[in-house]
């Protein structure tokens, strides 16, 4: 608790500084990552983040110390090389994109490990600082490094905001962008550079192996809450910053703990919560709305069967006859019957079920929609009368009153459907 207060009251200037750094960095990575997620290129970020390792090592070897400029420079060079190679291989070989990314990711990482062991054997005392790049250590970031990384993050955020329109075109419809005269190839180049930059600044805090999470997860989680790009970007940024601060705090309390894994765990928790509980797109919401739809569908079918009995000049159906119509859905049928009875759409007298006038009107509506849709398919789509039933069976549950009016209007209020069956109207008598 003491630690908690000490950390979050920011009385220690260096902690305040680091939290500020993590915030800018998280926003930058989430920003770039969301675009690449929307572009279906989420794993390219993973490849780039593994691929910067040899560059970092080379920068370290050339400078002989952990100089941020050399390291950033080396990382940019090897990251660009990896990006270039991946697009070159995609154009010039028959390998699938997925194999290409896996090849680049693993070979660059292998090369990085070779260089890392070479440095290790050279006995340079600064070596310990280099290991941080693999798992990340936000607390270990020096203030002077922070200026460089913070500056880069700021550049990323600024250029993404300024070129928002171009990047939006790039991820949603690059072909259209090209057609209306935007230099899409150059836009992609700029975007790739920004992605490399965001990886370079992110690995200090998260590490090479887990950097992919900071690029992919915030966007994927935020996507469940909104369909608008602007709110998507803001939400992704909030997720990234939140988990960045949690990870940093844990590294602060337990100094031997690397920051990266905790950032990733908190990010993933946020993502899982989003996947399950988000309205509209979450698993729970979709599960319940599907179930609701299925019960409504079955109720509609029960009403329809009762109406068809009326058409056959029977006054209704016995309970057992109705149950026999849906042999594998006994429970659903019983539930539908009791629901409809409660809504006074049908009455049961000594096991014999008849529709009330309210129920009849509802049943007529469903049958009417079914037959209207069949007529529409037959007349406007030129589909043979014996092929229209299945589609109508689905559409009868979905057509809205507005669409019904439109169909009626187009078909000039038909009396008969393609099977020469009556299209029932509310004033009809049976």
């Amino acid at each position, binding site marked *: 608790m003491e630690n908690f207060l000490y950390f979050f009251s920011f009385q220690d200037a260096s902690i305040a500084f680091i939290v500020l750094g993590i915030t800018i960095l998280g926003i930058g990575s989430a920003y770039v990552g969301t675009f690449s997620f929307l572009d279906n290129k989420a*794993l390219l970020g993973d490849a780039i983040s593994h691929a910067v390792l040899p560059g970092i090592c080379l920068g370290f070897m050339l400078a002989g110390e952990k100089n941020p400029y050399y390291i950033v420079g080396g990382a940019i060079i090897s990251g660009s090389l990896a990006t270039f190679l991946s697009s070159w291989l995609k154009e010039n070989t028959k390998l699938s994109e997925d194999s290409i990314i896996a090849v680049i990711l693993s*070979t660059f990482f*292998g090369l990085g490990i*070779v260089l890392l062991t070479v440095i290790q054997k050279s006995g340079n005392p600064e070596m310990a600082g280099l290991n941080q790049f693999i798992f990340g250590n936000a607390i270990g970031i020096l203030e002077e490094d922070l200026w460089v990384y913070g500056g880069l993050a700021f550049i990323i955020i600024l250029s993404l905001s300024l070129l928002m329109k171009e990047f939006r075109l790039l991820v949603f419809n690059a072909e259209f962008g090209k057609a209306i005269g935007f230099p899409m190839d150059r836009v992609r180049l700029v975007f790739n550079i920004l992605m490399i930059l965001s990886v370079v600044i992110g690995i200090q805090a998260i590490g090479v192996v887990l950097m992919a999470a900071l690029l992919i997860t915030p966007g994927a989680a935020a996507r469940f809450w909104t369909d608008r790009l602007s709110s998507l970007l803001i939400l992704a940024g909030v997720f990234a910053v939140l988990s960045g601060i949690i990870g940093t705090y844990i590294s602060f309390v337990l100094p031997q703990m690397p920051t990266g*894994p905790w950032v990733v765990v908190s990010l993933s928790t946020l993502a899982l919560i989003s996947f399950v509980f988000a309205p509209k797109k979450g698993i729970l919401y979709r599960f319940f709305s599907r179930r609701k739809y299925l019960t409504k569908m079955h109720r509609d079918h029960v009403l329809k069967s009762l109406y068809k009995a009326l058409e056959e000049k029977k006054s209704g159906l016995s309970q057992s006859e109705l149950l026999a119509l849906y042999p594998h859905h006994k429970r659903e049928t019983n539930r539908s019957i009791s629901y409809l009875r409660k809504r006074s759409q049908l009455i049961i007298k000594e096991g014999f079920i008849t529709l009330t006038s309210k129920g009849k009107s509802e049943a007529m509506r469903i049958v009417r929609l079914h037959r209207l849709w069949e007529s529409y398919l037959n007349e406007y789509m030129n589909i043979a009368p014996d092929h229209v039933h299945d589609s109508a069976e689905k559409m009868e549950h979905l057509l809205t009153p507005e669409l019904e009016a439109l169909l009626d209007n187009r078909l000039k209020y038909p009396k008969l459907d393609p099977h020469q069956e009556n299209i029932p109207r509310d004033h009809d008598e049976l």
Partner: protein
Amino acid sequence: MMSFDQNAFLIIFTASLIAISCGLLGVFMMLRKMSMTGDAISHAVLPGIVIGFFISGSQRGVEVIVGAGLLGIIATMVIDFLRKKAKVQLDASIGITFTLLFAIGIILINLLAYKVDLDQECVLYGEIAYLPIDLWITKAGFSMGPRITWLALLNLLLVITFILLLFKELKLTSFDEGFGLVMGIPAGGINLALMSMVSYTTVSSFEAVGAILVVALLVVPPATAFLWTKNIKSLIQLTVLIGIGISIIGYYMAFWLDSSIAGMIVSVAGLVFLVSAVFNSKKYKFKSGTRLEPEALSS
């Protein structure tokens, strides 16, 4: 300084065994466009390894293999769940799953740091160079030779048996899953079996080459072979040859530069891949297929 002694032979032999096991599985992973899933599995087995290690108290326990195998299957299922139930796109499902599981693994290593003798560097890059001194000694005190070599041999035998037994099924489901289903082959089951083999191979090899470099051996030799041939039999043969070749060259390069052997094997593999890609790229080859001429388009 080039020398060929018993140690060099053992290291090259073991590395080749691992490279062949990985390559054989990798061919099918590549044909199924699941290379990145292989990458995800090789990261995701980490928590299983750590938990197994913690329970058994040594890295030789069966628990380690069982733990890693379970985690590999869990990872495959989580990816599938995210993709099908939560409707997250495939690449993002892979990215989220493996980073989360790997992060949990690293956290566990740090939490149990004083209880298990396992450090993250060892899991990540492995050190095949210590192989000749890590001997398998029977209860009678008789030395049977390096333990990891035996593990790699066992692994290879199992992989070969697996592929021989299921060759037809693997081939069919790799190229046309729908047709396989029609023929009565349980594509989902075959897939899970392949993923379990990949996780088992990852664990079996992690001590030697490290969990992350396993993915390189899974991916790079098959991809290189794929650049040269499209026939599945020659694809497999070439993959095996490349696996052996990079092990030999990689060992001597590492010896010469005094660096990580596993890392060097992968770097050599990457170089071979790059040369093959340049040789076989569309630019440097005559196209034999028919092309649409501009006149044909305008008429």
